[in-house]
């Protein structure tokens, strides 16, 4: 049994077990945001399936009527009237007659949206390929990857494989385009340590600004790690943040269709995490990025 099958059973079972109605009445809007509030409030709240079914019936009816009327009508009342009339001397009568017949243009059939749960997986590269691409991107061999997990998911309107694993002290999180097998996003972060117990006291005090490497140095480290020249980086910025008792610099920039994000330890200059994400508007992806440890 595949993980996917188990996931489906779990989702189904807990959804069935959950109370089918919330027992909660959502608040009605107090402020008038749109016009015609009264009719809107009185608007009957039909379930969506009823609306779609009704619309489908109307469309089918129109198609049927239209198909029926598209056939050459024989002795319709209007044509009979035209024959009775003097069509020889009044050529427009026939035109009037022709146009008098109600012509209904058949509406195109409504395309019912495919349920988001339907996945055209036959067109996808597959989990094995996604796994291989992710490992290659990370520069890790399959034997080095611990607890590798792959999941098909929908992100920003497209199907992706989410691949997560740990290798040689780093945590990897990648998104692979399910249709093309291209790497869309690659995150690498130094493996975090187990959380401290509640009895441990937090390290007091804050790092004085003079003890940190500074924003400029943080930017330089990030650019060097990415292999990007300062002049080529767009939107380069560094922000000082406090994270889990440690001061870090978050450095971001874009270059050649890729968005980079680094976390740099403000005291030591160590690169704590690295994220690269393909710019959605740019199909090119630079495979020359360096994912090797920088020790």
């Amino acid at each position, binding site marked *: 049994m595949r993980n996917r099958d188990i996931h489906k059973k779990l989702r189904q079972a807990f959804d069935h*077990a959950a109370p089918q109605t919330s027992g909660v009445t959502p608040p009605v809007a107090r402020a008038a945001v749109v016009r015609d509030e009264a009719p809107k409030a009185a608007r009957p709240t039909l379930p969506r399936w009823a609306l779609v079914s009704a619309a489908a019936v109307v469309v089918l009816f129109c198609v049927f009527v239209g198909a029926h009327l598209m056939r050459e009508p024989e002795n319709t009342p209007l044509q009979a009237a035209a024959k009775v009339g003097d069509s020889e001397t009044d050529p427009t009568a026939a035109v009037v007659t022709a146009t008098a017949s109600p012509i209904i243009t058949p509406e195109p059939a409504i395309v019912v949206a495919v349920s988001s749960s339907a996945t055209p997986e036959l067109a996808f590269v597959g989990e094995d390929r996604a796994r291989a691409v992710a490992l290659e991107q990370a520069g890790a061999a399959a034997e080095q990857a611990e607890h590798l997990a792959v999941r098909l998911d929908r992100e920003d309107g497209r199907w992706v494989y989410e691949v997560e694993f740990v290798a040689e002290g780093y945590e990897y999180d990648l998104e692979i385009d399910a249709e093309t097998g291209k790497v869309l996003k690659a995150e690498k972060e130094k493996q975090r340590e187990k959380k401290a117990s509640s009895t441990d006291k937090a390290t007091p005090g804050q790092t004085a600004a003079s003890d940190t490497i500074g924003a400029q140095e943080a930017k330089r480290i990030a650019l060097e790690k990415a292999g990007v020249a300062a002049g080529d980086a767009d939107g380069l910025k560094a922000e000082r943040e406090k994270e889990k008792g440690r001061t870090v610099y978050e450095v971001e920039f874009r270059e050649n269709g890729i968005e980079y994000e680094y976390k740099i330890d403000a005291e030591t200059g160590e690169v704590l995490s690295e994220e690269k994400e393909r710019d959605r508007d740019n199909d090119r992806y630079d495979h020359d990025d360096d994912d090797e440890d920088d020790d």
Partner: protein
Amino acid sequence: MADCLGRMAAGEAEAFEEIYRGTRGAVYGFALSLLKNAHDAEDVAQEVYLRLCADPKRYREEGKPMAYLLRLTRNLCYDRLRARQLRGTEPLLEQAAPWADPALSQEDRLVIRSCLEELREEEQRAVLLHVLGGFRFREIAAFEGEPLSTVLSRYHRAMKKLRKVLS
């Protein structure tokens, strides 16, 4: 779901129903795994949605809507567990077995029972947050305050156990 919450904030009742249908399994399942009691889990789930209705935009402070809902679920469950602790141990006979609902199919009951009885609590959380909550493992790691490798390891162990029982 963020869009649904916006519509709900504007007073659209259908939007709330959409949110409820899309999240009830995750919220209830997560509460069930923490409380081990169907009635308590239902109470907590209802409280979660009451609070959501009271302040639909609150999730923005927390990040993703589902993360907000499940964090709220966890906090309410912990409150309830603390209250139980203060009152003393609940009699076991009073606890409703989550899989005892006769309205559920045999398969559903088997799945829920397997999840809650075969898996350790941290394994249940890893599975439920990932499968029902849609969390990535790194998000679960952050949510739980655990290393990614630990979460992944729990998940894989859990899948192995469930596969054995459900196959």
